[in-house]
């Protein structure tokens, strides 16, 4: 996927748009007998109304954990050790289990990575969509199934009436993911979290799903948090982007700015690592080194061991987040 900056499809979200979700200093750790992993290390992130935010990072960077934290799905041995998650002003971390269950699926919904394993094999498609309506919107079963059929149509699945009675294994991968989207959309949530929505799918299906998500955002006005390791996806559909590394956000801002002026060596390295169609290349520009052990993070900036431009202070003190042009970045190189 090449990095064409699709300006036309992106809307200009200025800062006077309402803030839907605001994460402040979130910290999540996983403890076992042998060690403690700090999966999320104090991040600040916000999503505005109706915007698509891309959260980019390698595996292990903490992006999925962030998503699960928003949903309130962090379970032992994981524990949220600090911060707030403000959803329209209310702190989700302070809510009771019951309240969270009311919000999950209804106001905030999630789409998972592997649709093949994320759908229950012994329940029909219709049942799996209808139940979310039955429990959140108190619909009768017949009404819920009718609405489910509508949703299948919205996500562009042909023959929705027949599909209702089918089982997940009878559908292709792309269709299964559409069903997941239908489930997520059923209650018209304000926020949809898509965790690597296309990673498990064929390349040809990928763009279909992404287009679908974009159109749905336009239709329903929901905000979407897209979590991915693929910068190309972010370039194609996200209004704003945040880059995570070792549980920290290294930079965030609107997509154009971040991609054009990264303001962080890791981000520029990510962008450069992708070969471009009109370029002549002999080797891939991979980032040297490996992701550090999350239970033994280096002092100072977590990227410093792999950074070409690291200065002495980078190894010593963690950089603070600072506004550089149109984005916020945490890097000592910015002064």
């Amino acid at each position, binding site marked *: 996927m090449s990095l064409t900056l699709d300006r036309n499809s992106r809307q200009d979200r200025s800062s006077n748009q309402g803030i839907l979700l605001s994460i402040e200093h979130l910290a999540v750790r996983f403890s076992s007998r042998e060690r403690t992993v700090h999966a999320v290390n104090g991040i600040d992130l916000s999503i505005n109304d109706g915007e698509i935010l891309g959260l980019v990072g390698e595996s292990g960077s903490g992006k999925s954990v962030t998503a699960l934290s928003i*949903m309130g*799905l962090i379970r032992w041995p994981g524990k949220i050790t600090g911060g707030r998650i403000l959803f329209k002003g209310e702190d989700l971390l302070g809510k009771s289990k019951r309240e*969270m*269950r*009311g*919000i*999950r*699926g*209804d106001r905030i*919904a*999630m789409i*998972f990575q*592997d649709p093949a*394993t*994320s*759908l*229950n*094999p*012994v*329940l029909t498609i219709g049942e799996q969509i209808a*139940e*979310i309506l039955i*429990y*959140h919107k108190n619909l009768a079963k017949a009404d819920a199934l009718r609405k489910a059929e509508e949703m299948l149509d919205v996500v562009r699945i042909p023959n929705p009436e027949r599909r209702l009675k*089918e*089982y997940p*294994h*009878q559908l292709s991968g792309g269709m299964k993911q559409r069903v*997941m989207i239908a*489930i997520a959309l059923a209650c018209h949530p304000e926020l949809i979290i898509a965790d690597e929505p296309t990673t498990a799918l064929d390349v040809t299906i990928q763009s279909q799903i992404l287009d679908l998500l974009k159109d749905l955002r336009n239709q329903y006005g929901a905000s979407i948090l897209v979590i991915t390791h693929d910068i190309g996806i972010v370039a194609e559909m996200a209004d704003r982007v945040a880059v995570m590394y070792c549980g920290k956000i290294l930079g965030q801002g609107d997509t154009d700015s971040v991609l054009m002026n990264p303001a962080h060596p890791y981000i520029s390295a990510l962008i450069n690592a992708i070969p471009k169609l009109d370029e002549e290349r002999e080797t891939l520009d991979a980032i040297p080194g490996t992701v550090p052990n999350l239970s033994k993070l280096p002092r100072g900036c977590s990227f410093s061991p792999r950074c070409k431009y690291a200065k002495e202070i980078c190894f010593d003190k963690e950089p603070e987040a600072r506004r550089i042009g149109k984005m916020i970045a945490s890097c000592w190189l910015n002064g």
Partner: protein
Amino acid sequence: MDRVRRHGMDFLIKRVFAIVATLILASVIVFLIIHLIPGDPAELLAGPGVPKNEVEMIRKTMGLDKNLLTQYILWFSRLLRGDLGKSLVFGDSILPLILERFGNTFLLSLFAILLSVVIGIPLGMASAIKQNSSVDISVMVISIIGISMPIFWIGLILILVFSVDLRLLPATGSGSFAHLILPGVALGMNSLAIIARMTRSSMLEILRQDYMVTAEAKGLPASVIILKHALRNALIPIVTIISMQFGYLLGGAVLTETVFVYPGLGRLLVDAISRRDYPVVQACILLIVVLFIVINFLVDMAYTYMDPRIKYGK
């Protein structure tokens, strides 16, 4: 076991054919038992101390002087007519005797399996949901003890406590519901332990699956997540185990029936063996084998029906 991934008539027909073939094979084996026992089959069937001419008469009627194939056909045709011969001990026709005893065993086994399912499955579920908690550990310990204790000893203890000391329940015989309780509990203990363990491991396996996270992400109430999403999946292997256990109980209530002097199939078999009542032995074994094959077949069908991936294979 490999399963044909197609639902429909030819699948069913195929399975029915297989079962008939197995039944015939089993009948051949059972038929051969008499010939495997050291000694002259006619004498064995006639019984000890029977005068020579009677033995010869038996040899003639049973066709034991002819070749094996003819014998088998004779035996099989008699079988189809319902003639299982006469008991050497009771002198009565075997078929009604066996059926009556079987009915008793069936009742007892039903009670036992119901008990073990009603208690075992919830215990297993609780154990899986609260893994490594005190509930889990106690269930695990109790179930492993339940598997280790000999049924006949459990039976004796139950008799001691409830019949002898407390005088609450009858120890032996049959005829009323009260007579079912003690043997039913003794018989069910083992199955309870196995079912609880199986439920636990099956649930644990299911709870780890991705679709359970999806169910949680939908914000569904906990009871729905556990019962509708998890249990439906976990039950598939559990139902198999339950059916197998039922089969075990039917054929294997031997020890329990002996302890409680319960007039069932198991005790009939044991008595027949010790008294060398070979016609009865043969008949009992045949019945038990047939039962097993039929139950196995039903389990197969149940499995196919319960798992949509098999029922509606692509």
